[in-house]
């Protein structure tokens, strides 16, 4: 029961906080020189993370997170190599800007860092208790039977909300599936159609079509007309579009 609501998530300090920590450990100011000095430490940290991720079950999903660290590491190596080589590397304005931006972010985070300690100190020290709406609680406890209060702590009153979110996601997936009618497919099917018929009209083509399909059909017709494969005729505003196949001599 204890693990019912637990979501396992691989978790570590972000690159910015880690850099601020490394710089502060060495009692350095935030500038290019100190960034060069802590490059090796940051690379160690990255290596450590990578080996931890290797042992994780779903390591693929962490690659996105890891990539931010790799970008940061490459920037540090660039800074380091600049400081080691005693001549000016070709000026790369974009890279210079990125380094300035990085310093700016590090200064910001250094000032903000005490806030993390404040939150850590407050966390679960003096909890304010309240309870969920009786009816909902009744429902939830009958379906999910939360174990002790510690497990239930994070969940019952939010379960409804979570299920609401899931429903939204499920619905979204449905519409996405319907959406997929590619223009290319439509054009192909129209070309096949015109092998059989000489003339048709838009309402016939879009019979029973969904809104999305209607739009794709319309785009496909415009495309074919531009290519000179069909001609379009409309005898009045909002009247049906007559589509004729153009025969090339």
């Amino acid at each position: 029961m204890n693990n019912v609501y637990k979501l396992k998530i691989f978790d570590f300090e972000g690159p910015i906080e880690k850099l601020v920590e490394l710089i502060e450990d060495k009692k350095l100011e935030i500038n290019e020189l100190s960034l060069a000095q802590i490059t090796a430490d940051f690379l160690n940290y990255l290596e450590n993370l990578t080996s931890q991720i290797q042992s994780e079950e779903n390591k693929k999903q962490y690659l996105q997170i890891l990539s931010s660290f790799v970008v940061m590491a490459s920037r540090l190596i660039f800074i380091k190599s600049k400081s080691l080589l005693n001549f000016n590397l070709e000026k790369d304005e974009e890279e210079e800007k990125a380094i300035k931006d990085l310093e700016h972010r590090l200064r910001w985070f250094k000032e903000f860092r005490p806030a993390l300690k404040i939150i850590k100190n407050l966390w679960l020290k003096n909890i304010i208790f309240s309870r969920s709406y009786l009816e909902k609680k009744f429902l939830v406890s009958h379906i999910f039977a939360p174990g002790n209060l510690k497990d239930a702590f994070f969940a019952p009153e939010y379960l409804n909300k979570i299920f609401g979110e899931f429903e939204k996601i499920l619905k979204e997936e449905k519409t996405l599936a319907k959406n997929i009618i590619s223009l290319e497919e439509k054009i192909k099917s129209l070309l096949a159609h015109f092998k059989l018929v000489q003339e048709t009209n838009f309402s016939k083509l879009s019979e029973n079509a969904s809104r999305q399909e209607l739009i794709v059909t319309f785009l496909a017709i415009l495309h074919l007309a531009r290519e000179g494969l069909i001609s379009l005729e409309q005898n009045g505003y909002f009247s049906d579009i007559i589509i004729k196949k153009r025969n090339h001599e």
Partner: protein
Amino acid sequence: MNESNKNKKLAELEALLFIYGEPISFKKISEVLEITEDDALKLVEDFKESLEGENRGLILLFSEEKIQIGTKPEFSSILEKLIKKEISEDLTPASLETLALILYFSPISRSKIEYHRGVDSSFILKSLLLRGLIERYPDPKMPNAYLYVPSFNLLRHLGISKKEDLPDYQKFNELNKKFEEGKLVQEDANHLSENIIENINQEEQNKSQ
């Protein structure tokens, strides 16, 4: 509202908050109690004051146009005595970074959180949403983007009635404003962080006494 009507409505509000338990919007309060939203605001303010006395054990929480009733943070140990168990669950480094940003600078976008942390934060945000510690709503200025705010659940875990009650809330927001304007003078910053660290140390001393 005259005096006797007001007292009646105050009592009704107390009963409503007790029954409902969960966060409730001012709009809903005004509908249920059949008063205007303005009156609901005033009523809640009066009720909040009436709870401030030492002989009261309850407190009101505020966030995003909603309120909730809860027990005052100083009585948190009562529950631990009841269940004879200490409640503990550590905050991981990524949670701590993300929650601190959301608490001090909400409503805040994912891109801003990622800018300050320097790392993709979609997983940690999802995890915090699932644990009910944060909430999000669509950004009115940006389609397909969300703004993240602390949940009542989070406020209760921290024992604060609203996010503005966090220590140094104003200071960090001023600091952030300066940074965004790109005007932060290094001296200012040093001074500021010294002050903040001093405050923390002071608090820790008070606690250990």
